[in-house]
């Protein structure tokens, strides 16, 4: 079963709608038991870095999530679900992230409007599974104030004042900064690629 992690503040509904539209059976997972049984996990993050990680912990979801990722279960983080993979974030300095990627998530400088709301282009690294069949330069829909630094595991980057990581692939761990459930055909393709992995 594909689990969409519900920690109380994410946009689970619209991601669920997209996954169902693509024809994959899925469920909203809000208990540790559900997460432990998952074959694939999607974390549609939204809101505040610290609040999300605390909410996951308080609901007993953080430990099974880490265990599943370590066991090789395919994971797709969306938006905050990408940022959570880093060590920490400027948004919540005292709250540790999952630490699977090195570095600190930073706030956009005020050179551009913050948050970035709208469509921006993906610069893709060749050979990515997550971005299979997606042309370089495709647009995706973003809505965020903090950005993830470019790491060796980045398979897609985007420019908005800074060049930052918008697609991650590290073994079974995938993540995107944009909202695939709101990015039209491009987004649906990314979701399909993950669901078929």
């Amino acid at each position, binding site marked *: 079963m594909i689990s969409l992690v519900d920690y109380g503040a994410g946009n689970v509904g619209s991601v669920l709608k997209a996954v169902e*539209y693509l024809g994959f059976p899925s469920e909203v997972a809000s208990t540790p038991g559900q997460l432990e049984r998952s074959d694939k996990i999607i974390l549609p993050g939204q809101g505040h870095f610290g609040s999300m990680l605390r909410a996951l912990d308080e609901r007993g979801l953080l430990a099974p999530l880490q265990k599943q990722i370590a066991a090789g279960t395919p994971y797709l983080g969306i938006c905050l679900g990408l940022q959570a993979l880093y060590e920490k974030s400027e948004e919540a300095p005292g709250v540790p992230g999952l630490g699977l990627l090195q570095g600190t998530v930073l706030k956009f400088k005020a050179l551009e409007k913050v948050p970035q*709301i*709208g*469509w921006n282009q993906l610069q893709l690294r060749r050979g990515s599974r997550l971005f299979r069949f997606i042309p370089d330069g495709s*647009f995706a829909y973003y809505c965020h104030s903090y950005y993830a630094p470019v790491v060796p595991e980045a398979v897609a980057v985007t420019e908005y004042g800074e060049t930052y990581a918008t697609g991650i692939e590290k073994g079974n761990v995938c993540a995107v900064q944009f909202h695939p*459930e709101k990015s039209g055909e491009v987004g649906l393709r990314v979701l399909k690629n993950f669901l078929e992995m």
Partner: protein
Amino acid sequence: MFAKRIIPCLDCKDGRVVKGIRFLNLRDAGDPGELAEAYNRAGADELVMLDISASREGRATLMETVTRVARKLFIPLTVGGGVRTVEDAQRLLGAGSDKIAINTAAVEHPEVISELAAQFGSQAVVVAIDARRTHAPKVETGNLKLEDGKSKSEKRKATDYDVPVSNFQFPVSSAAPAAPRWEVVTYGGSRPTGLDAERWARRVAELGAGEILLTSMDADGTQAGFDCELTATMSHAVPIPVIASGGAGNPEHFAEVFLRGAADAALAASIFHFETHTVRSLKRFLRERGVPVRI
């Protein structure tokens, strides 16, 4: 490349799109679901649905309409019209809307903006501002009292704009160069509020609005072009995106509002409902004019 957004607007009443529809190749031109899909195929970056139903029955229909429109739509959907409380917003977001637009209720109870942002995140909160030119000189915006002994023209102005005396804005000096100002109006433009639109924009951004949907009441319905001066003033005043609305009549108007008006997005209804200008042809035009768009 970060793109400027083109946003078609569906004005809905009792579950039907009501404004200037003449779409070809649709079984039912007034059906919001079909129009939404057509705009999505044509390359719209987002959709806005504004409900103008007056009745409670109309509102109930809206929920059903939102659910139906959202089911197959994988671009952002904003719904507005009659949103007054966190509960109203909750229902719309639950039905599949990604953002809600709030207008009159925000002016009457600004704290609702913070409540919505705290509950759903700023990204879900669009504050709609309807602004009208006052043609008054640059004004001091302190809450000065109108007292006896003031000039007739000052008194007449207060009456003209029908604003509470405590909100009356005095000219700094009669010698100051005239700069255009805009006043916030509510209830579909029928009620002046005395609020300076630029100040109100700053305030709503501080309160947690994620975007501003700015409609020029002078330009709205004229198809003579957006109010670029208003849009630029507001866009430079706030750190959040400003969606320009009102006055779109041809592709050149969109180029102007992006290049001269500093708009982050532009919204229009009638121009897209007639197939002379599709979203796609508009975007091609804009690209040639050097406006970054998603094609």
